[in-house]
């Protein structure tokens, strides 16, 4: 390699493209450089990021290219691998991020690819299941269910036809780790699925990707074709969603895969016993499956050694919203929320004080800075009336209107409800109405409506409702939704609503 024509590495994932990476790549190519389109490092505030001999430059526009090549660019960020944002991470799932070309089989094999699958094939199903169980791996989709137990259930279920379904319907705002795996390291996901298939005896796998991810769909389809000989006899097909958030719920996803309305199914029966087309089915999130090759290649004990409490291994945490250094931060469980927002994320992008952090997507609670001591793991957040979900953090500055955010949570639930159960379908609309009333500027106590005034409505208040009574009604509604809904959409929508109410009651007129 000569100094005149260096190899320039630029990401080709959707985020880099959205920030203008193609134009930057073309500008380098026009100067005679060889451009390698790799996966993203996950340092999103620096995208488009170019890497030349390990030195980083970003965020670049096409006009910056000449200065970069002349060595005079003010956008130099120094050695990328030693950048504090990366140096503090422990990357197992994202070990190849920014290093390999996503669809290059040689790059994949040269960086330890397929070692997990080979190990699983050498061990056989029983020992593979034992390794996944012993690792303590829990489902990364949000519920945190032990992956080994799910796989064992499917393996033990009677029947010759079994399925592996990868839930890649990453609809939560503030999350993009699944997308980064699919676009940046698709073979890793396929390897994880093949290990699962080998362990439970499945012949067919499906990846259900949301239609909002066209780049991920293209990369996955190309990867499936390239890797098919490696995966055989296991076959994988990529299926595309159709814009329904609720299809991220596993039973709704299965209905959608079967070609039905994406309505939630009652459980039991568990999908592990009667899932896709009524057959035993493993349904796992992208990150769960992508964690498996490392566990097989390095051993369950090594994985088990990382983490906090009952949450073992690493979690790719996604720093999003109004944050200065947004991106992907994979680390063992146990790091505190405050470290993530301030030390790593650098506070808000707007420079204003942090007001709230929503953790876990649209169904996650809003946490005030007073919660910043919380260690990042499933149990600690549950104890603080929250959840880590898919580990997305959305930061809001002090201009956020928390009543409006609570209203949005209800409105989102109303828009995306599958309609199967009443608390979610109707409760969400009643919630929007209640929060609108609480936000009205010239609010007067509300007289009972026609239904509330009926004699048989014995429990309905007959006196005009002031703010306190309306808030009590909202809390009551949330209680009904939380315990009466079939799935997490209606069941968890109360989290953002009640947390906003609890921490910022003055914004609700309390």
């Amino acid at each position, binding site marked *: 390699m000569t100094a005149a024509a260096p190899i320039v590495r630029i990401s080709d994932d*959707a985020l880099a493209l959205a920030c203008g990476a193609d134009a930057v790549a073309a500008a380098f190519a026009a100067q005679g450089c060889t451009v390698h389109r790799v996966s993203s490092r996950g340092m999103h505030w620096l995208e488009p990021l170019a890497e030349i001999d390990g030195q980083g430059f970003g965020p670049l526009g096409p006009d910056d290219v000449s200065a970069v090549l002349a060595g005079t660019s003010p956008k130099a960020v120094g050695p990328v691998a030693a950048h504090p944002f990366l140096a503090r991470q422990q990357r197992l799932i994202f070990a190849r991020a920014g290093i390999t070309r996503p669809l290059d089989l040689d790059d994949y094999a040269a960086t330890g690819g397929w070692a997990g699958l080979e190990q699983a094939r050498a061990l056989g199903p029983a020992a593979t299941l034992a390794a996944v169980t012993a690792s303590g791996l829990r489902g990364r989709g949000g519920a945190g269910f032990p992956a080994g137990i799910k796989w064992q259930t499917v393996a033990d279920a009677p029947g010759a036809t079994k399925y592996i379904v990868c839930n890649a319907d990453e609809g939560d*705002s503030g999350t993009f780790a699944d997308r980064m795996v699919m676009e940046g390291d698709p073979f890793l996901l396929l390897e994880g699925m093949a290990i699962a298939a080998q362990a439970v005896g499945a012949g067919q796998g499906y990846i259900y990707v949301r239609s*909002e991810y066209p*780049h991920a769909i293209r990369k996955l389809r190309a990867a499936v074709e390239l890797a098919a000989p490696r995966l055989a006899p296991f076959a994988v097909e990529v299926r595309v969603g159709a814009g329904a958030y609720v299809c991220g719920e596993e039973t709704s996803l299965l209905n959608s895969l079967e070609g039905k309305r994406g309505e939630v199914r009652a459980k039991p029966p568990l999908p592990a016993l009667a899932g896709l087309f009524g057959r035993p089915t493993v349904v796992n999130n992208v990150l769960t499956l992508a964690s498996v090759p490392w566990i097989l290649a390095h051993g369950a004990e090594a994985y088990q050694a990382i983490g906090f409490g009952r949450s073992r291994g690493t979690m790719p945490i996604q720093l999003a919203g109004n944050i200065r250094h*947004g991106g992907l931060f994979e680390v063992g469980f146990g790091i505190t929320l405050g470290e993530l927002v301030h030390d790593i994320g650098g506070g808000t992008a707007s420079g204003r004080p942090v007001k709230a952090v929503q953790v876990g997507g649209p169904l996650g609670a809003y946490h005030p800075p007073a919660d910043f001591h919380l260690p990042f793991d499933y149990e600690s957040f549950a104890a603080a009336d929250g959840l880590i979900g898919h580990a997305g953090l959305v930061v809001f500055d002090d201009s956020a209107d928390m009543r409006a955010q609570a209203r949005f949570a209800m409105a989102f639930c109303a828009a995306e409800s599958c309609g199967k159960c009443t608390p979610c379908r109707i409760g969400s609309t009643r919630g929007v109405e209640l929060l609108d009333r609480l936000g009205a500027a010239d609010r007067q106590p509300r007289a009972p409506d026609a239904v509330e005034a009926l004699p048989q409505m014995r429990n309905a208040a007959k006196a005009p409702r002031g703010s306190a009574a309306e808030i009590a009604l909202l809390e009551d509604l949330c209680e009904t939704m939380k315990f009466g809904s079939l799935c997490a959409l209606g069941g968890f929508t109360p989290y953002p609503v009640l947390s906003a109410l609890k921490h910022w009651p003055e914004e609700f007129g309390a």
Partner: protein
Amino acid sequence: MAEILARHAGREGALLPILHDVQAALGHVPEAAIRAIAQALNLSRAEVHGVVSFYHDFRTDPDPRPVLKLCRAEACQARGSEALAAGLGDPAGVRVETVYCLGLCSVGPNAMIGEVVHARLDAGRLAALVETLA
């Protein structure tokens, strides 16, 4: 229509892939297509219609206007998407749709036109995008 149906013959759970292909080819899923699909998959028209109407991606009426999908989920809200949406309004000749999350949550506000994604939008850049469509 026959070509699309033939392409998916014998596939398990073929309805969504078929509907995606029809929508891509025609821009919407007309009543005639629903009849043909129901016939081919041995479903009732009501079942097919139920699926078409369930998913946000499918529409039964034609709309030739180009589409701009603006993300208005929480992460983009935290970066100012609501003010952008209010300022954009309903521009002539363009269908502005709301999308909940494009997975670019650290660099919002974001939008998608076709399969091309755009990040770090402000009012000026968004107006320029709309201009390219109208």
